[in-house]
């Protein structure tokens, strides 16, 4: 009996019903359904919150392993993780908006995150260098378009040639936007089909059921 409750079909059925109700609530004015849809959305938030505990337990399992084995180069950081998690939890329980918790968030976590985000610029330069090497006609066109857009976004572009901002605008509005929109439309269609497949229990790849052979042709 216990095994029957672990069958994926039961969960697929529950998910299908929940998705069906959500879709009905999205497309139709049904006051009787509104409360149910809102309740399900609240459940989703609740489940997501519980998932954070799950995330910590998963991380704890790995880091406890490193500490137990004294894995070189890893265990001191793992120990630090547990120490700081305990400190942040105690400080957060005391007050979220003042004291040590707010201080470390504002002066340690946020600047570190911003620093890492700032490095993106260097990685973009490096990626652009590789992408812009004119090895083929397509790469050559990309290179010319890229230079024009870059110049169009700098003040020097207009100084060099007054029409560069116009070309930049044209490239972004009529060169780029239609392709991006077509990708967005097809991605949305793909998503609809994916949702239909999940709802009907056809799509089971996320349950680890891809077929024994695997591999595309």
């Amino acid at each position, binding site marked *: 009996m216990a095994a029957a409750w672990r069958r994926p079909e039961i969960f697929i059925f529950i998910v299908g019903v929940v998705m069906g109700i959500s879709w009905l609530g999205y497309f*139709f004015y049904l006051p009787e359904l509104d409360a149910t849809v809102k309740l399900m959305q609240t459940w989703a938030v609740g489940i997501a919150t519980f998932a954070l505990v799950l995330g910590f337990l998963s991380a704890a399992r790995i880091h406890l392993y490193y500490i137990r084995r004294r894995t070189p180069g890893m265990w001191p950081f793992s120990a630090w993780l547990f120490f700081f998690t305990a400190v942040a939890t105690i400080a957060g329980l005391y007050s979220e908006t003042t004291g040590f918790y707010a201080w470390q968030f504002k002066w340690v976590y946020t600047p570190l995150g911003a620093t890492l985000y700032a490095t993106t610029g260097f990685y973009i330069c490096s990626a652009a260098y590789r992408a812009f090497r004119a090895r083929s006609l397509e790469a050559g066109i990309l290179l010319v378009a890229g230079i024009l857009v870059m110049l169009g976004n700098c003040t020097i572009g207009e100084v060099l040639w007054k029409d560069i901002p116009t070309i930049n605008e044209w490239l972004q509005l009529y060169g780029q936007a239609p392709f991006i929109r077509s990708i967005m439309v097809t*991605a949305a269609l793909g998503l609809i089909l994916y949702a239909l497949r999940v709802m009907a229990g056809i799509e089971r790849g996320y349950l680890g059921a891809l077929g024994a*052979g695997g591999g595309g042709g």
Partner: protein
Amino acid sequence: MVGALNLAMEIIVQGRGFQFVILLMTAIFLYIAYRLLKMGKEIYLRRLPAIDAIEEAIGRAAEMGKPAHYTYGAGGGWGGGLASHQGPQVVASSAILGYVAQLCARYDVRLIVNMMQADAIPLTEEVIRLAYLREGKPEKFDPKIINYFPGQSPMVTGILGTFQRERPAASFHIGGLYYESVVIGEAAKFVGAFLVAGTANTHQLAFIVATSDYVLIGEELYAAAAYISREPMQVASIASEDWVKFILMAITVIGMILESAGIHVISNMLKW
């Protein structure tokens, strides 16, 4: 029938009528495509080079004796988690992860997964565990290959560290990618990893195209599981999607012509 249609017309939310018609049409086409397949009709499925390249990437890792790395990116890792609008990309990506894990198990390649979607951890564990089971090597699965990071910047830092320490021969960045797409994409290139990336986030497409060897663009991410499994119903769904695409293209062209002529039938239909 007419009564039900009238009722539907009355209670449908303004502006969502056309979306509902598309949804219904998609479901009907899905059924038709499935019936055609069952009757023995061949449905052409175009190649997805990025999926075909996965085996090559894992084979390369096996030859070099190095691990393979997989991440979903940051999408679905905050806010509503898997229930957010980025969630489906993570779920779709988990099916590809299953395929990657299966190949890793087959060729004895160590797999490392870095992720920040707390609610997707059980899903990820189960997908990988079943992949090892399919290859008859359940004992080789170690849940500790899944590293959880509680934020985007910690995850990016963690992946950069993984690349420096482990030097993976292949890396897969598939899911709701944000700024990490270019950072970890370039970092993967620095360590010489074969890179396959995919996302439906259009703002990151340029970066994955610039950094990756193979890419899954937009809908290809959702179609990947169907492409790998080749199950008739899944293949039918891809075919039906293409049919809807043709109809939408026709509506677009007719709409352009009619709007230019001052006839607003199509634009009014879209607003219904």
